[in-house]
């Protein structure tokens, strides 16, 4: 943690007083004065700290505003408090582009004005609640006061373009494929994309608000539905946060099983998406083969653990289902089979020249742009961002193994494709190691006893989901109930990078560019 000392002395020189608190082995909480909020961000940016997440909450007459930064696997949870009667704070989005939409979300949900924010438009709010109502404030009821039929949000000011032959393509919210809803506004000339603007928020389900007052068990269930394809990792992150707050240690066996589930989730999604990328450039052979492998993988989940996506198998304190010796054996055989399948398929895909023609150089995201937006997961790792929570801020069970992180810096669709393939291989090895370690432990001992956490205790769960780093914040209120839950899905940061990656591509390549990112709408709109 040597960089933190240097940085703290820099802050001291700049007259920024820091009150620090130890949260977990990788997280320190730093409380600063609200007037230094933006200045801190400037110094943090000079210090090459990555902006990871931002959220706020109301605690009686105050707003606690948080921003989470990371450097070399050490996290700083920055906090300041402002008065509800004068909710103003200098914006960090002027320094960190990654904070842009997050601050707009915080504004829409809590009414905090981020001064000098580069983009004053609303983000999460469409027309479901009024401009001067803020759902996450205490005086806003869960039911709100919605209109009989919520009208569409027609007043959003998209960037306009003028000139001969420039035209606009509005797409969504209901898309042609079987995917989540969102709106895309393209400006194009001929086939070329000049600009893309995303307008999301259509699947805003009030997740943060309805989390309030829940029990830990019930929050774990909700966390599993933040983004259905990431149910394991989101539940895991929320559980880590809750266990941290309550001071509950899970058993080694439970940690290993969580690891197996998370890596199985990663493999399932990567298999499906590699196929879907091929499908978007009309290579049906690879699509069908990959879908076949994914289906087999999901059926194993169902047969061994009772759910195709392993939903609700992680609970606070541990897991509800064991990986028995027989299940471990089956998993080993299955991995061997998958290796054989991929050894056939990947060369066949690699040697296909039409696929090469479509995937190489398309959807280019430069390492600079990726860093600018704090891009995460396989998207970041394909664009030179060498970061993985599992390796750089390891949590059990990853602290007991060596995690090999796939890395490329070409930044195109092909690069993302290969990173995902490499991640499948790495995950298979991890699962094998976890299963081997399980064999040395006695069966059972799956759920640790729960202890009611003190009111106001909080935790920050940080895990690496298949899309990348998930940051999950939980604060408890009285009597074992949740006072605040905020999950930051990696998509929130990757969506903005997608806007840049499609520039100068042709409109018909948008689907494959989009699929190569595969951001979550639900996890972003909350």
């Amino acid at each position, binding site marked *: 943690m040597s960089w933190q000392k240097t940085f703290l002395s820099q802050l001291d020189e700049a007259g920024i007083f820091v009150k620090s608190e130890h949260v977990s082995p990788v997280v320190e909480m730093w409380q600063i004065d609200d007037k230094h909020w933006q200045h801190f961000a400037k110094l943090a940016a000079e210090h090459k700290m990555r902006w990871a997440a931002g959220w706020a909450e109301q605690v009686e007459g105050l707003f606690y505003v948080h921003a989470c930064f990371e450097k070399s696997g050490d996290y700083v949870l920055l906090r300041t408090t402002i008065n509800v009667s004068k909710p103003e704070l200098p914006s960090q989005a002027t320094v960190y582009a990654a904070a842009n939409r997050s601050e707009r979300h915080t504004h829409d949900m809590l009414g905090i004005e981020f001064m000098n924010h580069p983009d004053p438009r609303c983000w999460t709010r469409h027309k*479901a609640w009024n401009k001067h109502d803020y759902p996450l404030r205490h005086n806003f009821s869960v039911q709100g006061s919605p209109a009989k039929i919520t009208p569409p949000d027609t007043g959003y000011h998209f960037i306009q373009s003028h000139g001969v032959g420039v035209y606009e393509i509005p797409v969504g919210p209901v898309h*042609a494929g*079987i995917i*989540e*809803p969102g709106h895309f506004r393209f400006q194009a000339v001929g086939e070329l994309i000049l600009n893309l603007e995303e307008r999301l928020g259509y*699947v805003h389900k009030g997740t943060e608000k309805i989390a309030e007052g829940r029990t830990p068990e019930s929050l774990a*269930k909700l966390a599993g539905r933040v983004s259905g394809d990431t149910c394991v990792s989101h539940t895991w992150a929320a559980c880590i946060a809750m266990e941290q707050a309550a001071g509950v240690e899970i058993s080694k066996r439970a940690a290993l099983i969580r690891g197996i589930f998370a890596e199985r989730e990663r493999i399932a999604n990567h298999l499906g998406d590699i196929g879907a990328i091929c499908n978007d450039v009309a290579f049906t052979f690879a699509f*069908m083969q990959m879908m076949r492998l994914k289906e087999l993988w999901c059926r194993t989940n169902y047969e061994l653990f009772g759910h195709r996506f392993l939903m609700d198998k992680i609970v606070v304190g541990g897991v509800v289902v064991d990986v028995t010796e027989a299940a471990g054996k089956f998993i080993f055989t299955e991995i061997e089979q998958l290796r054989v399948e991929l050894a056939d398929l990947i060369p*066949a895909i690699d040697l296909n020249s039409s696929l090469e023609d479509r995937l190489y150089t398309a959807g280019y995201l430069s390492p600079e742009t990726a860093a600018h937006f704090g891009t995460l997961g396989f998207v970041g790792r394909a664009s030179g961002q060498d970061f993985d929570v599992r390796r750089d801020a390891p949590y059990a069970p990853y602290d007991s193994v060596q995690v090999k992180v796939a890395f490329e810096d070409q930044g195109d669709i092909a690069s993302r494709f290969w990173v995902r393939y490499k991640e499948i291989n790495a995950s298979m090895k991890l699962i094998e190691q976890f299963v081997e370690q399980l064999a040395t432990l006695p069966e059972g001992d799956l759920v640790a006893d729960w202890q009611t956490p003190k009111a106001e205790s909080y935790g920050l769960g940080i895990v690496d989901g298949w899309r990348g780093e998930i940051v999950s914040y939980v604060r408890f209120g009285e009597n074992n109930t949740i006072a605040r839950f905020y999950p930051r899905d990696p998509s929130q940061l990757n969506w903005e990078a997608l806007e840049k990656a499609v520039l100068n591509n042709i409109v018909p390549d948008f689907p494959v560019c989009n699929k190569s990112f595969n951001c979550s709408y639900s996890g972003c*709109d909350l």
Partner: protein
Amino acid sequence: MLNTFKKIFSVGMVTEKYKAAYDEELETLGIEIKRRIDHKFTGSLAIRAVDAGSCNGCELEIHALNNPFYDVERFGIHFVASPRHADILLVTGVVSRHMETALLRTYDATPNPKWVIAMGDCASCGGEFGVSYASCGAVSNVIPVDMTINGCPPTPLVLLKGLLTLMEEKK
């Protein structure tokens, strides 16, 4: 290219190959569905999937219906890109208030006769999200629903069963 052909031939047709109990049921179900679809829609049923506020779990299982194991198209059931081409709206998720108008417009754009299936616990009864300032809850709170398929998410096989039940109800 040779690799591709080699793989195609060596894998063979998984759709027929798997006749374990699990898939036998699928086979009977599928044939039953085909018989009923033939009766109602002369062999073709066009489904438009609409995510009205799902977590994306249900979407993954709808995708699975099209994988070579279930290969739902062989029963005459296919997914279309526009509600204007659809006989059935397959709606997933609670209806978020931000999607309410979009769903109503999609419903209006679907020609009669049309059926609506609410897929998954959220769409059927509100699930984990229920009714709130941001969510209208179950799909039936917004548009008429002909049938519901429970599950979080429903497995592809349950989805097929659901389609069958709908046909029986409408008979």
